[in-house]
């Protein structure tokens, strides 16, 4: 051991130096974190800023400013087509937002009901085939999207559901997405409560409704919020099954406005302005929801990922 005796004075000096070094280090840490925060928030800043920036057909790098000076509402007017000539076909943006709201709300609500019921059944009831059903649900989570998607798409054709709310909403009214989380969460509820209710001869529906659901409020809130955001943000299924613009959701509308997809024609720079106005309007609801229910997003991660 090479420890040597040091005087008290030297010890205090060392202590002071260590404290200074620690302060500098944590200053550097903070700086790195701030820089990375700026980098990751920059795209959102730029999206909002660009929605107030006039982007004409001849817009080039030289016209870029950190903040638009002066800011203009022209992109929003263009997006809503407020002063488009009367012979131009209107962009049905009201329908886009309405459809997005429906896609975000209706399947989410019905999934809350049916997934929690299924989760309760798998967590607390004993019946033959329980493990098989549970593992079938887990297994589907690893199957790539396109395996069921191609037949499902053809099925929508055969049912004549393309471009209808049946395809947009009905096929998603129940599913396996939330069952796993509900099962994991309901499993942690004490079985003695349920058994006690059974001894009191309460019906299974009553037990579910009066005991299980009230105790599952946090997971219901979590699934409701993430389901809403997920539905609002979904683009690929609505893109596949709609083909007239009054059935689009806002995400599909934006996809079309920027010419994405296999058959889209990429528009010129001037399309960015009005697209960003729409993008900002599409982003604001989920940003508000995020700030209002922040803790649920964080909680969702700890429930979802690491209970395996």
């Amino acid at each position, binding site marked *: 051991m090479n420890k040597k005796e040091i005087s008290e004075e030297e010890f205090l000096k060392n202590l002071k130096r260590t404290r200074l070094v620690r302060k500098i280090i944590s200053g550097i840490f903070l700086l790195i974190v701030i820089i990375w925060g700026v980098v990751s928030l920059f795209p959102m800043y730029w999206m909002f800023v660009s929605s107030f920036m006039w982007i004409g057909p001849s817009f080039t790098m030289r016209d870029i400013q950190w903040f638009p000076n002066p800011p203009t509402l022209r992109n929003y007017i263009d997006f809503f087509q407020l002063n488009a000539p009367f012979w131009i076909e209107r962009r049905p943006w009201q329908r886009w937002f309405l459809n997005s709201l429906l896609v975000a709300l209706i399947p989410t609500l019905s999934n809350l009901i049916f997934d929690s019921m299924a989760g309760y059944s798998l967590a607390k009831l004993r019946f033959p085939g329980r493990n098989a059903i549970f593992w079938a649900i887990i297994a589907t989570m690893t199957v*790539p999207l396109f395996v069921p998607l191609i037949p499902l798409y053809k099925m929508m054709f055969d049912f004549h559901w393309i471009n209808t709310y049946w395809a947009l909403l009905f096929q998603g009214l129940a599913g396996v997405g939330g069952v796993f989380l509900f099962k994991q969460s309901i499993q942690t509820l004490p079985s003695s409560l349920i058994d006690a209710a059974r001894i009191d001869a309460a019906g299974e529906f009553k037990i579910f409704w009066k005991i299980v659901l009230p105790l599952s409020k946090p997971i219901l809130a979590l699934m409701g919020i993430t389901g809403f955001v997920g539905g609002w943000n979904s683009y690929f299924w609505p893109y596949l099954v709609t083909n007239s613009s009054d059935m689009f959701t806002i995400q599909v509308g934006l996809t079309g406005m920027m010419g994405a997809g296999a058959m889209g024609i990429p528009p010129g*720079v001037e399309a960015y302005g009005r697209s960003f106005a729409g993008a900002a309007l599409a982003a604001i609801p989920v940003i508000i929801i995020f700030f209002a229910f922040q803790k649920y997003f964080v909680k969702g991660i700890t429930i979802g990922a690491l209970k395996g």
Partner: protein
Amino acid sequence: MFKLIKRNYVYNEWFWAYVFLAVDLAWSTLFLFYPMIKGVIYSFQDIQLQNISNPHFIGFKNYINVLTDPDWWHSVKISALYTLGVVPMGIIIPLTISLLLAHFRRSIRDFFKAAFYLPGVVSAVVMAMTLKWIFDPMAGFMNWLFSLLGLPTQLWYSGTSEALFTLILMNWLSSHGFNILLYSAALDRIPKSLYEAAEIDAASSWRRFWKITWPLLKPTTLYVLITSVIGSFQAFGGAFFITHGGPMKATEFLNYRIYVTFYQFGQYGIAAAMSVLLMLMVIAVSLLNFKIMGSEVEY
């Protein structure tokens, strides 16, 4: 007597269990399990949009078609390169940031966690649109920044040799919020007493990381590794929104190739064979990950 009641009760429990599962099972069977099986069946059939009413079995012909197509292997290469580019940073960046964050007060930590997670709640459409605009070769922010710094402007996603790297770069910049939260939560769960013990033993912070933090974060790292390998091997959005698989097929990911085969060319059988092959690859890669990382992890 008791036995009778008991049997009746068990019967009841079965009955109610299936009642509670009924709607979910019906929907999943019709709209998920059945299409999945059908998808595998399609992959052995000659079925295409032009001839949709008359599908017939053709054995492994679709698979042979796909596996002898150099374009398919090109897409495998592109997806593999993208995965190799994305996954290491997808672990390094979130891990570094959450280790740095662990040094600060709870309030500062929560503020930054929210800031990092926020871009993740915005839709993929909006994010892709914004990134496309930022990397626009003619009027984009990045080229503006480059010219301010005196660097040569780049072609970004519109250059054949740059496009794939640009999509990787976009991923580095935009998709770590979830994993930062994951790592932070895992760090919070490491008992402080372990570090105190290490402090008494005068272990350096480097040693502390490799001997305490890293091993205890293994389950999280395994989870992040597997989800990000699976996710990036099935990358789609970048090609769909930004590059259309181009220029010159430079970003034609597996999933984008499947999408084009299915939706643009209407070759359902071949697209189904491709997606079954993709599924097999995803399963193989995840098992491999488990083998490498999982052997050392205790759950």
